[in-house]
């Protein structure tokens, strides 16, 4: 591992050609070897203890955590000792790499394992390997497919958010007074926690009896303004709340893109007599495509994680009409303690997301390169 992580070039720092090798090569190697052996020994002892082969009385896996931390530090220090300046460069990226690897690798592997087990926390039997049973249940689970279909609607709603955000960005980019006030006001919803928003809007503003939104709807002639009663109404209400929170995000990106547009091009269009709509359609919009794509893709990636608002306002109802995949799995964990099956759902969802995002990235890169 230590040998393969070498620096091939050092073009930016061509000043000092010969990077000095480490001064304490032997000591560094010895330290690294010692730390690695310690780590492996503790790992072996803890595993044996957990399997019941030997009884050492470990209360938890904490010791392994400490040994890993020590090993990580020794690894970094020994890299500097063994490889000198190359090690110093590696030390920049090592903390983040070791942290992410430790935090992601184990959960991923372990998650894959529990996805294939029958494990209900409230059941007595405990964990039991059951092969592809979870996958079969999943294929027949209409609630899951329903939640996945809802995700399609939610992702499509991002396009509407994008249209509104673009409009707002154009407004803020126009020659207006009090621009700072409007910019801050438009940005504020993004700051608020989705949980607080769930109450502020979902449970109070849109409340059936006293909520101002319901009062307004009655005033406008809608007799029965129950925002969460029918499936489509509930879905639209959730979408509206989600849009309220996340439109500012796209707006900020698009506004930055608009401000970065070269002024001469718009000037030339005006001299040529283009109307507002024409100059937008023929000039602004095409030039904004790369920024638009970035904003849309980021928003879609975040939208795929949508859960907090749904969990707190409708809990998926009525009849699963507003369920997102995340909120569905959340309830599978929390209310039914169905760990094995819930994890299988999550893993399948992850695969679907990865394929979907990869396709979008591939499709979008064509657009972004052509305009760059």
């Amino acid at each position, binding site marked *: 591992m230590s040998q393969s992580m070498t620096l091939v070039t050092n073009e930016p720092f061509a000043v*000092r050609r010969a990077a000095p090798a480490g001064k304490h090569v032997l000591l560094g190697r010895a330290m690294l070897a010692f730390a690695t052996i310690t780590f492996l020994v503790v790992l072996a002892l803890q595993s044996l203890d957990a399997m019941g082969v030997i009884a050492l009385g470990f209360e938890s896996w904490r010791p392994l955590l400490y040994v890993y931390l020590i090993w990580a530090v020794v690894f970094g220090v020994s890299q500097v000792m063994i490889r000198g300046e190359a090690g110093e460069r590696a030390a*920049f990226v090592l903390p*983040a790499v070791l942290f*992410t690897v430790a935090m992601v690798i184990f959960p991923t592997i372990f998650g894959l394992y529990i996805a294939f087990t029958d494990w209900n926390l409230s059941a007595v039997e405990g964990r039991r390997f059951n092969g592809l049973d979870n996958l079969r249940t999943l294929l027949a689970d209409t609630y899951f497919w329903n939640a996945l279909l809802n995700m399609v609607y939610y992702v499509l709603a991002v396009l509407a958010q994008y249209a509104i955000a673009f409009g707002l960005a154009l407004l803020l980019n126009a020659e207006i007074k009090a621009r700072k006030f409007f910019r801050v006001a438009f940005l504020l919803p993004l700051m608020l926690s989705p*949980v607080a928003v769930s109450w502020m809007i979902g449970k109070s503003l849109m409340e059936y009896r006293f909520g101002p939104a319901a009062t307004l709807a009655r005033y406008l002639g809608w007799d029965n303004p129950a925002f969460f009663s029918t499936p489509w109404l509930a879905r639209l209400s959730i979408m509206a709340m989600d849009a309220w929170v996340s439109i500012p995000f796209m707006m900020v990106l698009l506004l930055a893109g608009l401000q970065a547009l070269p002024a001469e091009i718009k000037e030339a269009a005006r001299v040529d007599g283009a109307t507002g709509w024409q100059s937008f359609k023929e000039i602004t919009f095409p030039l904004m495509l790369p920024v638009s794509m970035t904003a849309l893709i980021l928003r879609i990636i975040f939208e795929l994680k949508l859960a907090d608002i749904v969990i707190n306002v409708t809990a998926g109802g009525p009849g699963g009409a507003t369920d997102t995949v*995340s909120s569905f799995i959340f309830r599978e*964990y929390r209310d039914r303690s169905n760990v094995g099956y819930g994890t299988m759902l999550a893993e399948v969802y*992850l695969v679907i997301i990865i394929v979907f995002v990869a396709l979008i990235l591939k499709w979008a890169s064509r657009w972004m390169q052509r305009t760059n």
Partner: protein
Amino acid sequence: MSTAHEAIRPETPARRSFAVPGFMTRSMLIYAALVFWAFVSLFPIYWTVTTSFKTAVNVTQGHLIPFVDFTPDWKGWRSLGLSPDTIFEQSTVRDEFMRRFFNSIVASAGASLLAVVIGSLAAYGLSRFSYKFLWMRNKDISFFFLSQLILPPVVLAMPFLVLYKQLMLLDSLVGLILVYTLMVLPIVIWIMRDQFDTIPLELEQAALVDGCSIWGAFLRIVLPIALPGMVAAFILSVILCWNEYFFAALLTSTDAKTLPVMVASQTGSQGINWWSMAAIASAAILPLVLIGIFLERYIVKGLTAGAVK
């Protein structure tokens, strides 16, 4: 671009004559739209804050404007133990609230700090040096970090629950800080790499010629210049962590519970009074509203990093 110009030219004379009389209405329309959206953005916040000063009658009758429609009352804040007459008395609700508030501050500030430190280091390395690790080069390492963004919390939630149970990190702030760090690290690296890319290499090269080590040049020369970017990354991380609900709801129970979990548990109970709920919600969003008003510049800087070239 050439096609665009051809499409526009033929209509030139006719369009120009409309430009001047249309101007007034156009700017009025713009302001109308701006005011409308400002209302949409601000009304829920206004509603929440005013509701925390209402009594039952004012809620049911839909009164909106304090001092005109209704007389403000400390009822909501009194139930939290935060009204002027109760602030110096004992209050279990307030103690509970302050603990959640404190937990939220520690978790979000701790995670953001850790993420900014290791994320900035990694971003600097990726921006300046060429790495090769197995088959992975800089581009692949960057992608490895950024790809964590796609990972939905549900995928990691259950394994983390089990892992934390084994490590005795369940319901602890340290555990929460580690998860949040993982969550914001890709965003920090994204922002900081963009930041370091804009700093000219000549500065560090001069320092290296003067005998600085790589780390010395980084700490003494580059870091001070990159500070605004780090502040932006830090603030954005704090906001994300402060609002996080999913992991907090699953990984904490009594000791390390954060503010969003408390707010959510209150909304679940149907009997809760609107005024006290509004008071809790107002108190929970107040720090963020203040951050939004006073640090808007940094938030925009953080959000737009790397998106606009």
